[in-house]
């Protein structure tokens, strides 16, 4: 765990303590489990997004995909009577294929990620709405799928299975990103795609894989979301979820320029965002302020991080300068004022 992640963890803990003091019910196992469930759902999205962001890309169609894939899943299982054991892998494959198409457009046809996935955002939302003719896809009253429901919305010793899934996915994806050759390649591509290609890395294939991973994880999350709400109005389901995922990744230290960030950070970012939403409800803050609280905390977090780094760099410079000052026979002149960064 790097220093940045520790700072974020500290923030999460401090906020938690403050909330717990104001309303001790914050610490009730049931509340923690409820929040853990949503952390699981959104965390999976954030990890997917993180894989794309590390390459210097972005995936804006996440929210629409959550709607489209969710609608399809519910429709397959609840209406078309497809066995869920078939529908589940089908949706995952669909997510991966969509990711692959994005990756293909970006790497082979050289389109910008922002543009491709913005079009995706619009197209998938439209497709989802068209599929149900603007109706809702949902389970009928009493329609039950005990195994599926246990897997997706159940709890194990009180711990939501979605959270357990997130933990497993995080560990695997952490190893892949931080310990495997593939992960190193992704960092290299994010930093300097051309130099990576000149080192014999198949950059196109790697970037495409990142989008496939994102599509796959998004599909999984879409299924979880569908089983959590059990009903999907395609016009609004999942709206802005891409922003939550991006915000979590950015809070967790990912740079949208690519090549920077850690999986732990993305997960902690999600934890913080969900903690904030929980807090708004628990402390009875008007729901209208929900967004503002989220935006404010992200901004402050990023600012502190930025200033912290600037101050540290500054301090290192000053101490380094002082050391040599002592060495070099100095004429006792005043230092020339810093003059960088003029606006």
């Amino acid at each position, binding site marked *: 765990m790097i220093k940045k992640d520790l700072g974020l963890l500290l923030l999460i803990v401090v906020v938690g303590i403050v909330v717990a003091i104001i309303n001790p019910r914050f610490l009730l196992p049931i509340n923690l489990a409820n929040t853990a469930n949503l952390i699981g759902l959104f965390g999976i999205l954030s990890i997917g997004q993180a894989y794309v962001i590390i390459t210097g890309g972005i995936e804006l169609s996440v929210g629409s995909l959550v709607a489209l894939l969710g609608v399809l899943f519910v429709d397959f299982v609840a209406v078309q009577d497809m066995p869920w054991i078939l529908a589940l892998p089908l949706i995952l494959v669909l997510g991966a294929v969509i990711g692959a198409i994005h990756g293909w457009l970006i790497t082979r046809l050289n389109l910008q990620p922002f543009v491709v996935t913005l079009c995706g955002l619009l197209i998938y939302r439209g497709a989802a709405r068209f599929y149900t003719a603007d*109706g809702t896809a949902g389970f009928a009253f009493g329609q039950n799928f005990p195994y599926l429901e246990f897997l997706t919305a159940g709890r194990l010793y009180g711990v939501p299975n979605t959270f357990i899934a997130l933990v497993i996915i995080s560990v695997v994806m952490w190893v892949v990103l931080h310990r495997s050759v593939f992960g190193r390649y992704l960092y290299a591509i994010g930093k300097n795609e051309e130099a990576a290609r000149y080192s014999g890395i198949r950059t196109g294939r790697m970037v495409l894989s990142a989008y496939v991973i994102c599509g796959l994880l998004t599909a999984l999350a879409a299924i979880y979301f569908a089983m959590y*709400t059990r009903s999907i109005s395609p*016009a609004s389901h999942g709206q802005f979820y891409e922003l939550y995922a991006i915000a979590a990744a950015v809070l967790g230290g990912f740079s949208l320029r690519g090549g920077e960030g850690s999986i732990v950070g993305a997960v902690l970012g999600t934890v913080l965002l969900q903690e904030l939403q929980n807090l708004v409800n*628990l402390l009875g803050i008007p729901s209208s302020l929900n967004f503002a609280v989220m935006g404010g905390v992200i901004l402050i977090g990023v600012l502190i991080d930025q200033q912290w780094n600037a101050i540290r760099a500054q301090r290192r410079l000053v101490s380094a300068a002082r050391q040599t000052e002592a060495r070099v026979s100095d004429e006792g002149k005043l230092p020339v004022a810093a003059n960088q960064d003029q606006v």
Partner: protein
Amino acid sequence: ASYAADKPTLAFVVNGASDFWKAAEAGVKKAQAEMPDYNMELKYPEQAAVAIQQRLMEDLVSAGVKGIMVSAVDPKTQTDGLNKIGSQTALFTTDSDAPKTNRVAYIGSSNVDAGKQAAEIAKKAMPDGGKCMGFVGLLGADNARERIEGMKEGLKGTKIELVDVRGDDIDQTRAKKNVEDALVASPDLTCMVGFYSYNTPRIYEALRDAGKLGQITVVGFDDDPITLGGVKEGTIAATVVQQPFEWAYQGMKLMAAYLKGDKSGIPADGLIIIPTVIIGKDDVDKYAANLKAMAGK
């Protein structure tokens, strides 16, 4: 389908995509079947926003639509926009009225009355009083405000209190989490009210997950299948249903008649209230059968 120039077109414009309007769609279809010399369509705006709905209506007018029945996103302040439409076509309102415009008539329910009916349900289910939490999609929308107002008014002088209403911006995930959080934050809650059509099923599911079905009184709105199921099961006290099917069916016929010059169906005050109904455990089966019949299934 493009609009054939020979047949006059009537449009039913809703306030946002939601299953609630599926019944209205069925009503439009039934009216269409009875009146083949008209084109009748139900239109969803891409978003529940004034600018987008206004644009949709302007385009419909350009396309030559002869009559529009609209559930305005924000009727109170949409006056000018609605007047503009009303001066070019026959304009009717539904779902929530805009009385100060040049609309011909309103056909729909009274949201204040619906709120009062919700209070009735609560009073009957909790004679000894209770503490209620409400849930709604758009806190700022007129229909939400009126229902909340109506309910508060109906609860005046009782020991039942509506302590807070949480909004979710029609995000189902938040809708459900809001219920979960409410259960944690206020353990003394004895009742929950779902003001929008999807809020009641989200309440139902969150309570089921928490093992609290039956322990908390649920007051519902509208006729989502889960809501009706819960009512039948006895875990939902009752639900206040509106009749969008009737709004659409009667509305379309009324508009067609109006365009032909027959104004006999328009009352002097321009208000055609199709009452909201409380559906309790005993009425559910009949209501559901009726719904099915209306949908023509």
